């Protein structure tokens, strides 16, 4: 018998996390070179990059540390366990759910792993309109290259394309709508379709299994369940961050971190709220303004075959012209969750009509629609209550209609018998030749569409002009000497495409400048 060759596995870095239960009752006082608030896409990358440069880093994450082994693969349970406000965060009107991760690793833990580079046209427009020539496609390319390599970002292979994705791509091709397999940050995907509940078997290359353990291995101190609350400010510098760790018994413990540099990476909702609470960085009056979010819907089309659109890669293919986002641009991503999502994403009617709708769950083609929306929203405190004041702008409504129109036509081209629009009043299109007339008759308004946002952006706008932006091209907050913002809140406009890869690349780029300060 011959010996089986042994493959030497590279050592796995260990993620060490200090949970609130491990914080002494008397509290904790820490000194660091850099304190990073938030551990999602941007915070984790920054923590690793700065640790790599020898900085002593402390990461404060408000959400809990939930090891992957505790993920349940049940969406409702995951909402409670991993999402901001238990998955119930909404806009002020209450007609759009805003989903964000609230756990160590942030939204990277609960996203669908879809990766796109920011379209060149978007980066070029940032240079033209906001003076951000430093973020040109050419300048950013090495950073995209780096994160794509580190996070195993690659287009789905043929084995990862489920029937839903293949049918939708086939339909798009028949209509000459650009389509391709989606790229994802995933390794050896087990095709369980449970991305949004967290990847239990650690195949999705979220921050929880990549940059955070890497930073930890390099000596970064990572605290979970620890919310930054206020700052000590002296001469335009934040000298200390005051945070509160809340343990399992509800006991609050003070965590105070003195640091030379402060990096805020809490996401496009929590970051401006933190600055507003502290009354800092708002010389432009724009902190919290310019909120945008790729308002999304989920479209269903009833196919004659059993499609099981929830099986396999959560998102397998996409359709739409993403090279040059402009007015009316949309993106369709083939994928869907189970009957829970179907019932909350579409109005299947009531009574027997609803029962017939759900009994056909396995027949549905499913795709998420995204649009390139304008930055019309605002995030602010209202008597201690977080508010996300955002409604679909009339200028963006044609984009939503265009997305509906494209999805409906693709579904019919793929063989669908009927299409369900994501309206709050049951709207069913029975024939392909009815698509235009039905969708053209829709009106914009509150509580008329089943909207979800997965991509909050834009509330701490980056730009060269301090009067028209909150942070400069290097991420430094105007008017503060040692404070940086590195998350998606700095995007001057939306991307149209999923933002996570751009956040990773941008944080990598900004970390170089921050690290150079020593």
């Amino acid at each position: 018998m011959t010996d089986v060759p042994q493959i030497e596995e590279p050592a796995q870095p260990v993620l060490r996390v200090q949970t609130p239960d491990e914080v002494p009752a008397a509290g904790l006082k820490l000194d660091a070179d850099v304190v990073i608030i938030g551990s999602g896409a941007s915070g984790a990358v920054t923590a690793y990059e700065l640790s790599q440069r020898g900085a002593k880093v402390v990461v404060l994450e408000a959400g809990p540390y939930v090891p992957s082994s505790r993920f349940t693969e049940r969406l409702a349970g995951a909402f409670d366990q991993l999402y901001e406000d238990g998955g119930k965060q909404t806009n002020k009107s209450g007609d759009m759910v805003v989903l964000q991760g609230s756990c160590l690793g942030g939204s990277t833990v609960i996203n669908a792993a879809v990766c796109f580079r920011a379209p060149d046209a978007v980066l070029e427009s940032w240079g033209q309109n906001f003076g951000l020539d430093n973020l040109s496609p050419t300048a950013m390319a090495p950073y995209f290259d780096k994160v794509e390599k580190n996070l195993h970002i690659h287009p789905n292979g043929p084995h990862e394309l489920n029937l839903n994705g293949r049918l939708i791509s086939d339909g798009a091709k028949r209509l000459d709508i650009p389509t391709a397999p989606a790229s994802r940050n995933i390794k050896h995907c087990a095709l369980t379709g449970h991305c949004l509940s967290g990847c239990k078997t650690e195949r999705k290359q979220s921050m929880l299994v990549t940059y955070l353990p890497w930073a930890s291995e390099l000596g970064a101190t990572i605290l979970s369940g620890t919310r930054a609350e206020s700052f000590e400010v002296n001469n335009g510098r934040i000298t200390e961050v005051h945070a509160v760790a809340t343990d399992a018994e509800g006991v609050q413990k003070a965590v105070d971190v003195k640091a030379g540099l402060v990096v805020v990476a809490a996401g496009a909702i929590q970051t401006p709220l933190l600055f507003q609470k502290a009354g800092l960085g708002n010389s432009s009056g724009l902190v919290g303004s310019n909120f945008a979010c790729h308002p999304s819907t989920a479209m269903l089309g009833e196919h004659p075959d059993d499609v099981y659109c929830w099986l396999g890669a959560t998102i397998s293919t996409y359709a739409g012209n993403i090279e040059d986002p402009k007015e009316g641009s949309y993106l369709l991503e083939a994928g869907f969750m189970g009957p829970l999502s179907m019932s909350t994403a579409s109005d299947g009617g009531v009574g027997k009509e609803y029962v017939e709708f759900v009994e056909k769950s396995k027949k549905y083609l499913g795709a998420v629609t995204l649009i390139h929306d304008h930055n019309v929203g605002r995030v602010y405190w209202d008597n201690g209550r977080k508010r996300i004041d955002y409604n679909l702008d009339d200028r963006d409504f044609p984009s939503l209609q265009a997305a509906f129109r494209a999805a409906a036509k693709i579904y019919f081209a793929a063989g669908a018998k009927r299409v369900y629009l994501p309206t709050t009043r049951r709207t069913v299109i029975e024939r392909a030749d009815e698509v235009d007339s039905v969708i053209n008759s829709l009106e914009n308004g509150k509580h008329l569409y089943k909207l979800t946002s997965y991509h909050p952006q834009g509330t701490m706008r980056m730009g060269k002009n301090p009067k028209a932006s909150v942070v400069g091209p290097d991420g430094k907050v105007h008017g503060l000497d040692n404070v940086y913002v590195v998350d998606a809140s700095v995007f001057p406009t939306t991307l149209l495409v999923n933002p996570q890869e751009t956040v990773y690349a941008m944080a990598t780029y900004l970390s170089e400048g921050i690290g150079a300060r020593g």
Partner: protein
Amino acid sequence: MKLYRRTFTKLSILSGTGALVLPACQGEPPAMGEAAKLTPDERVLIERFAEVYIPTAGTNLKPLAEVPYLDNIDRILERLDGATLDEVHTGLKLFDYGSIVLGFHLTRFGNLSPEDRLEYIIDWTHGGETQRAIAGVLKSFVAFGYWQDVGAAQRVGYQGPVSDEAKIVSLGNAPMPVDQAQPETPT
């Protein structure tokens, strides 16, 4: 019926109907410490709503009575902030008592016949912004409470959790990037 529909479309819940209906509400406010759960009145309201929204009898769906959807809805409420919770309680009360005036039923939603309850839900779905919002919340609550039950979802072909059952191995943390590993500390 025409009058009924016209009444709906012309009344503004908060400025008109709400003012008419709320003084007639007799339900007890939630007791202190219990505000994050459905009140007994609300549980009855949602039961009557769910019976007509998802009529499982005679279908392949898991019977409503076997799904703890009310308890699941309680868990939703536990995660809402106080102000939102107050709005939910008010919205449910408006829906429950709205039928006294709207449609001239002169009785609460829970006392309506199944046919009238169905019609009432449809009318609210097609009503003004606040009516649509409240009807949407009720539908979402019931759907969320019902479909998170794995057994209920499996009846329509959804597989539910798989990794543990299939014993899919975990890959663990990703190795450090090869060309960027920490330089070894000089000894």
